């Protein structure tokens, strides 16, 4: 579980986007699960994303006309998992983040912490190797922040790599290792 810290403009989000295959890179090398990620086309990066990566965003980015369960099931839809299996797994993962009773709620019927937990369940449902979290607690109060970080820690113990971008020291301290970025360089 790694925290990435740095002032704004230091390149945290850029690094995360590159790690998340949402953005290309010009120099250096990026090995994911033993394979080089250089020069991927749109199609294969989409495939790697759904195979290895899960995303958690500061503003949750849930699709607001879909229920919690449908949001969680969405990555499976793009993996071509059958509808029945999708729904079953979505409910399983909602259970895991403690939102079993909220599966049929729309995002705007949920609190910030609940939304982020739905987002985490969505990141988990594809059984990723790495979860990339961009300021996952940025929009949450500190109590909820600690709950969400606790959840991420637990998942880390289950063997999923966590990369958390944050600018809050106490959040960074909950991670195993902190990387400080300064003007695009690791300090």
């Amino acid at each position, binding site marked *: 579980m790694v925290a990435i810290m740095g002032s704004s403009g230091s390149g945290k*989000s850029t690094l995360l*986007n590159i790690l*998340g295959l*949402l*953005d290309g890179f010009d120099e250096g090398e990026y090995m994911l699960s033993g394979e080089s990620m250089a020069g991927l086309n*749109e*199609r294969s990066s*989409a*495939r790697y*994303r*759904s195979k290895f990566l899960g*995303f958690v*965003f*500061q*503003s949750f*980015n*849930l*699709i607001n*006309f*879909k229920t919690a369960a449908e949001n969680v099931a*969405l*990555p499976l*839809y*793009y*993996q071509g998992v059958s*509808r029945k299996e999708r729904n079953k797994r979505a409910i399983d993962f909602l259970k895991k983040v403690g939102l079993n009773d909220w599966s049929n709620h729309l995002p705007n019927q949920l609190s910030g912490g609940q939304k982020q937990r739905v987002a985490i369940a*969505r990141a988990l449902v*594809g059984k990723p190797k790495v979860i990339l979290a*961009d300021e996952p607690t940025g929009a949450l109060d500190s109590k909820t922040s600690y709950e969400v970080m606790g959840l991420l820690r637990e998942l880390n113990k289950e063997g999923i790599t966590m990369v958390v971008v944050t600018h809050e020291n106490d959040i960074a301290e909950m991670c195993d290792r902190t990387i400080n970025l300064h003007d695009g360089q690791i300090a």
Partner: protein
Amino acid sequence: MFNRDTWLEIAYTVLSHPLRTALTGVSIALGVFILVVMQGLGFGLQNGVKKQFADDAVNSIWVQAGRTQLAYKGNMANKSVKIRENDVEAMFEEMDTVYASSRRIRTWGVQMEYGDKAGSYPLRGVDPDHQMLENTKLTDGRYINQRDIVEETKVAVLGATIVEEVYQGKDPMGTHIMIGGVLFSVVGTFDDPASRWENKMAVVPYSTAKKLFRSGRDKVDQVILGTGDMEVVETVSLTDRLMVWLKERKSVHPEDARGIWMENNNEEYQKYQNIFLGIELFIWGLGLLTLLAGAMGVANILAIAVKERTKEIGVRKALGATGLSIVGLVVQESLSLMLVSGSLGLVVGVWLLEIVSPMIAHEYFQNPQVDFRIAMVALGVLTVVGVLSGVGPAIRAVSIKPVEALRDE
């Protein structure tokens, strides 16, 4: 691409924006509706006028003589011109090919009696080709044949009105009818639905009519010439040539408009066909432009929708959606919107025509209906337009970079 999940996804996005969907749907449905209704009305008009032509064969030239207007070659004006049998024969020689022809004797108000019923009807003496040239459909028996002409037989073919009024539902076949005081045996009956006038006629052989009702006088009232499969331009030049030739032969002034009268049905029909082609093109143009306006509406609304859903599309991409699946989503959304609302417009349009058509039955306006092919073409056009109007917004959707889409405002 066409599995249940994709459609559920589309139904979801379409139905979750009811106002947007309704506005787009209405504009498309209206476009198709206007196209269908106008097609139907145009078709009705065409049907009506075509039926007027169904009375006579379209490929025919009708020749008839009258009184001269101008003095010529020592003849005073107002001379009655008569076409003789030898004129008709010379006319055939003048033409390169005679596809079909019939002389015609016309007599009005001939007394016809059967049993205790009687009435006054027009009579025609004709040649066998008359059946084809007048587009006569026999309902029973046979028409006048060549033997009747040669042997001057007393046979008659009766129109439906005579059968109805004189025979009162009895079968006229094989009976004898008194025509102008002479007994004729009935060998056939006909019914010409395009002309009530025609149905009042009794048709007898030309030679018989000449002998019995014209006292053997040699005067042909009308000559009908079939033009077979000649091109319209050829028939026009043939008519012009015959006109000049016949006027010269009968000593009628070349500028005289009444002495000799000819009508080329080919040309008349061609004129109407050109008008219809014009109307048809106009209707199609208008309908397609309406559809185009609708399609632009759809493209516009989709473009806004894509803009609105920038973030959603970014999220989908981050969750593993490929560019193709995003294009598919947008294009299929547009396509299903188009087809569903287009079909709705089609159904309502057809329904309206069904309701309205019995109310506006008119001689020149009959059976307004939508050709099945036109409905298919309209749906085809909708499909193409639906895909095309989806492509622009879809490309924009694909070019959305998740990074930018997901950046917080």
